[in-house]
């Protein structure tokens, strides 16, 4: 118990690092060697990213796609005025752009997060 600090350093930093490296190298090799496990890693990455992409599309493209039908069903909405500007002009000429950029920004953040998660599982950065 007299050499407490030294012993603590060994037990805390040593074993976990080597254990992790072994596991990570293994995950990367599974992918390189195209084993069933490696393909499962890849499938999960693709599925996560594709699901994110579809969520983004649902958020922007779906409401946009509903607009023409909405205006066709309720023509009164088409002549509704918001201040000096008719509602369709406000939505289609102005609002749509910041919303698109905002959703794109959230997408980029989440897509990078997904990739970092994948990196954490598969291996350390070079």
């Amino acid at each position: 118990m007299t050499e407490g600090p030294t012993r603590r350093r060994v037990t805390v930093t040593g074993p976990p690092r080597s254990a992790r490296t072994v596991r990570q190298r293994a995950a990367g090799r599974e992918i390189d060697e195209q084993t069933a496990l490696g393909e499962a890693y890849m499938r999960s990455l693709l599925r996560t990213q594709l699901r994110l992409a579809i969520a983004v599309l649902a958020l922007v493209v779906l409401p946009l796609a509903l607009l023409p039908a909405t205006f066709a069903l309720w023509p009164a909405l088409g002549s509704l005025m918001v201040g000096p500007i008719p509602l369709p002009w406000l939505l289609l000429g102005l609002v749509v752009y910041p919303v698109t950029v905002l959703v794109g920004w959230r997408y980029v953040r989440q897509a990078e997060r997904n990739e970092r998660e994948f990196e954490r599982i598969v291996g350390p950065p070079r």
Partner: protein
Amino acid sequence: MTSGAGTALLAIVLSVAAALLIGAFGTRLSRTTSDFYVASRSVSPWMNASAIGGEYLSAASFLGVAGLVMAFGVDMLWFPIGYTVGYLLLLVLVAAPLRRSGAYTVPDFAEGRLESRPVRRVATTFVVLIGWLYLVPQMVGAGLTLRTVLGVPTWVGVLAVGLVVLAAVAGGGMRSITLVQAFQYWLKLVAIVAPAFFVLAAWQADGAPPVLTETPPVFAERTSVAVGTDVVLQVDQPVRVRADGVVDGEEVSGGLRLGTGSHQVAAGTELVFPAGAPVPHAEPLPTLTGQAWAQPLGGGLEHPLYRTYALMLALFFGTMGLPHVLVRFYTNPDGRAARRTTLAVLGLVGVFYLAPPVYAALGRVYTPELLITGRTDAVVLTLPGAVVGGLGGQVLSAVVAAGAFAAFLSTSSGLTISVAGVLSQDVLGRRMRSPVGAFRAATTVAVAVPVLVTLSGQSLPVANLVGLAFAVAASSFCPLLLLGIWWSRLTAAGAVAGLLVGGGLSMAAVLITLLAGPLPGWAGALLAQPAAWTMPAAVVTMVVGSLLTSRQVPTGVTRIMVRLHTPESLDLDRGANLTRGGQWP
């Protein structure tokens, strides 16, 4: 030549000279063949995004959007929305994987991903066809611009842009230099936004005459209209005009009563309308009250709901398939940078599109005579001069003219490089010894064809032509990229079949629309906006074709999927770049 025309010519020459100088300067900085790619790795996503925006915002955006909205109303705002949301789809579905693929062009991607030469050849054909389809409206816009601001015949502008692009691309001065394209974006943004502010201020100072009128547009004052091409005028209320030229086949010089109905007016005729007279519209433009014009689905076209949805589909999914858009993605250092760049492009493009509706709305108040000649595409060019008088108006007109020219030049150069690139690599390269000679010959062909088509063809609205190019891209390259990136069971046979079915059908629809003119009824709507049926046809053919030939799934597909989707920082075996050894000229 009037002093206004002189100012405009000076502005156009200055903007072209600035672009060429920046290009020459950039070439001196990095002379190696790979300057495009290597140099760009040191530029920020914002610089890259400006360059992409510079190349992307074409005549259709600069002139066409405002022109279509002025003529047909709020439904036409789907054009700029489509051009922008198309980039969002590109961002979430293809940006990062495409950059990681290492492919420079769609044919490179197709061949590398599917390990097949035939699919490359088909893809090459469509790069050339889509490129030409997109180049024609640029030339049309150039002819219109020079005619509007300088009063010269249309063919002068067409030849001028053709020659400048030929010189710039073949000479290498403007070749793929990120800096030039970035400069062009900011020039275009200032050239459309700044005059819009002045026009709005002048409209306010004028007591803000209403846009949403209960009657169709009327002439605010006595207006003289020079008819540049033969038109058929639709007159709703009889009007007495002074005419000088040929109306309904008869020579007239002096007073003339135009009765209700349609009247043929020959090119070169001058008509003078009294103040307060309703504006006759050139066929096929609909005569709309201000209120009907502002209403969705009120643009006077048949089957507006179908047309709107088909247009959305074409633009949303067509962007990713445009040849000059794809090539730019290689300028990003990695997949993550490609995403960030695309996001910045979304912002830059979105800001630009806030301006065209201003021109469209005030154009109906101040320049309704454009509805007589039918060339509402010119509204961005004519409105500032018409609203802001004197020297200020001249300067603003010169600024928009310079911006319009920047739009033709940057987009045409980008398209020409893409078309000439695949032509020289896949068609001429094998027959000619020197790669530089092949590239120059290919550039000449790439420019000459759209110039000749433009000079011989009839005039269609600029944004409509571009819409057709998007429809073909959405029905050919979009399914190829989407399935190629996200579906590992795609086969070469399925891809070729899908490209031929989707691309072939949409191309046929485009040709019928261009040659036979707008047709009535459902046939006309289906042919004018083909993407709604040709794109699903392409997807279904690719999927079914691939499932039927499932034994021919490329052997290296697993490795390629690793290359497309994993971050570059991971030390994984991802095979080679999907490109043929960087043979890009």
